[in-house]
């Protein structure tokens, strides 16, 4: 909501000063025309108080209703209506105070066209000023929002960079390769290729990009294969996807942090062999992905439910869809289940095609 200028001292001081000078000038002009001081003052005060009310009215109206370019004609109408209202109100009041053929009435009648003209001009100026003022305020507000959105984007980008680098994963994978080189050179070579392909697909992806599920599952598979070499027999994985889900779409790099989180909890929270499972299905025209990993309920209290990896996914889903319930976690005995729903609106398909 725009702020009314009547609340700011910066506006009220010159505003009051202007009307004080204007009322005095008005009075002086009538005095010069032959009215006595008191009558001149009465006329000036009545006339200008009505105009000040009009000013207040214009600011209040425009505060709630600011016409776009097409509605600018409405402002013109507003000025005419205001001037007419001013004229009738003033005539009504002055007629009640002064008799029909007094000196005042004669002078008033001769100056009438001029005074209507001036009132029209004042109303016009005020309306234009109010219009410019609120437009400026709206623009400042929009600028602020834009800056904030840009900041968020930058943060997301930085986060993405860190996500991609995943130093812990990368250095451990390199260490595994280092070990394999002397004992199983063929496997070392295979792992170098897997790691390269994984890094390449990850680096290529853009945060904004939407991908088909099968592409995303392919890079997850690469990632899990590398982890399997690292952890040996301790890690087994299962990836299942319904055929109709495979062609559905999802934002790039959305599932990666979920799977990383599952690995982290599954492998570091127990000393037992760990199975990570990923299942994807279509549900009510939305893509549903379920990630499961074992955890130790005794030493990892449920509050750990949304770790850093998960909260960033939640945030991204919110930024994309404006919904907070798309990511859910639950625990069943010693299994931690993360479920993510990805809406598939028509507009998304259009965006992908562009």
């Amino acid at each position, binding site marked *: 909501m725009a702020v009314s200028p009547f609340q700011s001292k910066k506006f009220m001081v010159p505003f009051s000063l202007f009307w004080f000078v204007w009322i005095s000038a008005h009075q002086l002009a009538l005095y010069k025309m032959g009215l006595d001081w008191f009558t001149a003052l009465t006329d000036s005060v009545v006339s200008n108080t009505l105009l000040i009310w009009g000013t207040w009215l214009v600011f209040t109206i425009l505060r709630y209703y600011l016409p776009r370019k097409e509605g600018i004609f409405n402002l013109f109408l507003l000025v005419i209506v205001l001037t007419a209202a001013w004229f009738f109100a003033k005539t009504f009041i002055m007629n009640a105070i002064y008799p029909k053929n007094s000196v005042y009435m004669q002078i008033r009648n001769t100056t009438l066209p001029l005074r209507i003209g001036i009132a029209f001009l004042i109303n016009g100026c005020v309306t234009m000023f109010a219009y410019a003022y609120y437009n400026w305020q709206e623009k400042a507000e929009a600028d602020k929002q834009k800056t904030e959105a840009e900041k968020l984007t930058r943060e997301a980008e930085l986060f993405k960079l860190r996500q991609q680098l995943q*130093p812990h994963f990368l250095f*451990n994978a390199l260490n*595994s390769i280092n*070990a394999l080189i002397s*004992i199983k050179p063929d496997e070392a070579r295979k792992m170098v290729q897997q790691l390269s392909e994984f890094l390449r697909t990850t680096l290529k992806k853009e945060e904004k990009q939407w991908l088909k599920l099968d592409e995303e599952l392919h890079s997850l598979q690469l990632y899990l294969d590398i982890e399997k*070499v690292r952890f*040996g027999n301790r890690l087994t994985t299962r990836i299942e996807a319904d055929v109709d889900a495979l062609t559905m779409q999802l934002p790039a790099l959305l599932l990666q942090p979920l799977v990383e989180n599952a690995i982290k909890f599954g492998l570091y929270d127990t*000393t037992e062999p760990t199975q990570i499972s990923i299942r994807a299905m279509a549900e009510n025209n939305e893509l549903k992905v379920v990630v499961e990993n074992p955890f130790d309920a005794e030493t990892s*209290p449920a509050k750990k439910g949304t770790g850093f990896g998960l909260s960033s996914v939640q945030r991204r889903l919110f930024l994309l869809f404006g919904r907070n319930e798309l990511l859910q976690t639950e625990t069943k005995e010693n299994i931690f289940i993360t479920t993510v729903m990805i809406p598939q609106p028509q507009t998304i398909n259009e965006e992908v095609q562009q």
Partner: protein
Amino acid sequence: MSYKVIIIDDEPLARSVVKEYLQKHAQLELVEECSNGFEGVKAVQQHQPDLIFLDIQMPKITGFEMLELIENPPHVIFTTAYDEFAMQAFEANAVDYLLKPFSQERFDKAISKWMEKNKTTDSKATENLLKEAARHPQQNERIVVKTGSKIKIIPVQEIHYLEAADDYVKIITAEGAFLKKQTMGYFEDVLDGSLFVRTHRSFMVNIQEITRIDPYEKENHVALLKSGAKIPVSRAGYPKLKSILGL
């Protein structure tokens, strides 16, 4: 002269690199390989090795937590892939560490450094290191204790209060009391100050467990916990407790 060595790392390939590099050092005898901290504690007690190679990030308990459970821990060469926090702790205490993947040359250098150092034991460095490591983001939410031959992981929010007991600190939870060879000062340093308050020279209390604070004798107070336990609050402890509870 031969030295006993143990490798503790959860990744088989990471162990195999160390094993391979060890072959060049005939005086070092590999007595056991462990894939987690639990096995590590057991093996260290059984073999009393001269040197261990220890990974930080391992299942259940970290390498640091494992060391805390061992009395008079042996010399350690840490091996880690990437852990900014751990590296800071190592640097600060001049403890040698190997960043994975490391070369045979770098490994040899660490061994010769240890050989020199071996003659002058510096347990102070390990102690300081562990103190620092207790602030590790992975660790500062739990305390690892040994009860008999079992190892117990206590999430800090499950602690009701801590009580000093000679060289030990008694950790009281709903499940009972656990002893940890530590000082109260250590826990005051390590535990989250917005959750735990040292109300008395010998007591530290989890503020979420407090139900009531009553005056006691002249100028002292006593905090009543949900469990029914009564914790002394000294004259110095009372204002601390009040400010944290926002009274």
